[in-house]
């Protein structure tokens, strides 16, 4: 299936990337090429085969519910681009 510029714009929006026009053209071609390559997988019949998402058995891990010290607020906010009153600050989200 050919990838169109419209597809790339849609995916960029989902991925929260403000791509430049040059990037959009570049990725349209490159994604097309990579996806043509992975088309190879359709040669295989995988009906009824369980997918592997992790190679170790994933189980819910339990532990005692003990109180332990957590990161001090100051340190947790240490890398924040902007903070106010002990919180991460973001641009206004409600008009």
């Amino acid at each position, binding site marked *: 299936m050919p*990838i169109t510029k419209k*597809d*790339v714009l*849609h*995916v*960029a929006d*989902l*991925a*929260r*990337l*403000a*791509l*430049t026009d040059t*990037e959009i053209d570049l*990725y349209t071609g*490159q*994604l097309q*090429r*990579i*996806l043509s*390559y*992975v088309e*190879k*997988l*359709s040669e*295989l019949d*995988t009906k009824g*085969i*369980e*997918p*592997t*998402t*992790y*190679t*170790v058995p*994933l189980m819910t*891990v339990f*532990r005692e519910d003990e109180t332990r010290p957590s*990161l001090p607020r100051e*340190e*947790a906010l*240490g*890398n*924040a*681009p*902007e903070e106010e009153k002990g919180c*991460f600050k*973001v*641009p*206004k*989200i409600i008009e």
Partner: protein
Amino acid sequence: MDITSLTIHELSERLKKKELSSVGLTKEFLARMESVEPKIHSFITVTANDALEAARHADKRLAGGKDITPLTGVPISVKDIFCTKGVKTTCASKILADFVPPYDSTVVRRLKDAGAVILGKVNMDEFAMGSSTENSALFKTLNPWDTSRVPGGSSGGSAASVAAGECAASVGTDTGGSIRQPASCCGVVGLKPTYGRVSRYGMIAFASSLDQGGPFTKDVRDSAIMLNAMAGHDPRDSTSIDAPVPDYASFLGKGVKGLKVGIPKEYFIEGMDKDVEAAVRGALEVLKKEGAELVPITLPHTEYAVAVYYLVATAEASSNLARYDGVKYGLRVNETGSLMDMYKRTRDAGFGGEVKRRIMLGTYSLSAGYYDAYYKKASQVRTLIKNDFDSAFRKCDVIATPTAPTAAFKLGEKVADPLTMYLSDIFTISCNLAGIPGISIPCGFTKDGLPIGLQLLGKDLDEGTVLKAAYSYEQATDWHKQRPRL
């Protein structure tokens, strides 16, 4: 004799006998770094003061004669993907250029506890995405054997810093070959443990079902020493395996008599590099001479591994990298005051080309209407690849292959075409998809004097047998004693 060319176990002996002090040793490595860094460019951050402080502490420990490990007082480097408390951790990305973690990754914590002296943080492909370290947003690292060539990647700084004698050992991460391929390119030993053997806590995530930390060393004994310090269950990583950790050094020197070494026909393909093929076939003869039995095996789904990997890894990456949004840490670009605009501009300005390409591919393959055709299909083929290994390991104890199809390539040679770059990982990717351990050890040189790597793969949690076979080969040869002239 130049002590910066010595192994961990050689240095440790001298430290224990008080022939050296850790402070003296640390200064030697810092001086070596000063002389070779202008040519190699391995280090993003050098932590000389912290290193000297750790060395003073190690010297006290050594003087007391108590609680000494083979790593006590030994200087190492750390890939800039492992969080280090109070020390900048960039992942070689502009989006994390000023990020200073408030905690240590488990790997770093354990190495510090063992008494290792951390000299600094080394270069890599941005977010570990690449095979040449050319995708670092900061600078390029060069191969100590030939500075017109790449050191491999993504852990190129780790491999180059060990090969150039800037440290005794390093730690890196391997998602599709990012430890083994650069180890092969730089003529050092690189080990990717079983998925879950080493904690991923504090290791910046690329593809969570594939990422695994492991050591870079100058020989196989050092690899066992490093794994001893790094391995083990961590309650902070729910995928870390709760299994006993054997003393990996105890496997060494037991020989390979009767060991069955599987040779997969799919890894010896027509048109492969002649020097690589000759070196690897030569290595197989050495193993045979040492008493191993060579068994032909087949891994029939090998040709699909790259396609599976680039769907699975990018899907996981697109989700993992969603956290870089300019809110909690890292870069923020906020020109218009709109939240959505801030997310998008921050991410466009902060991520490099390869990272954006992979986020795009991963987002596409997970998006509505494509999930079954891409991500699910790839995960099913991943099962077939894992089954191939399960069948093969019923006939053999380890599998031997080339680590990479060629020796180190020229800077810029594969930059323009992402797919060609992806194909440099064809021999290393299946191991991550199956979750099994793998090592790359030096097994010769090309006519141009570039190192070649032999890859040995093992069963789940059977690093011991992998190290035993690697050690046996290494002791019968002297490739691991070669050092680049700088």
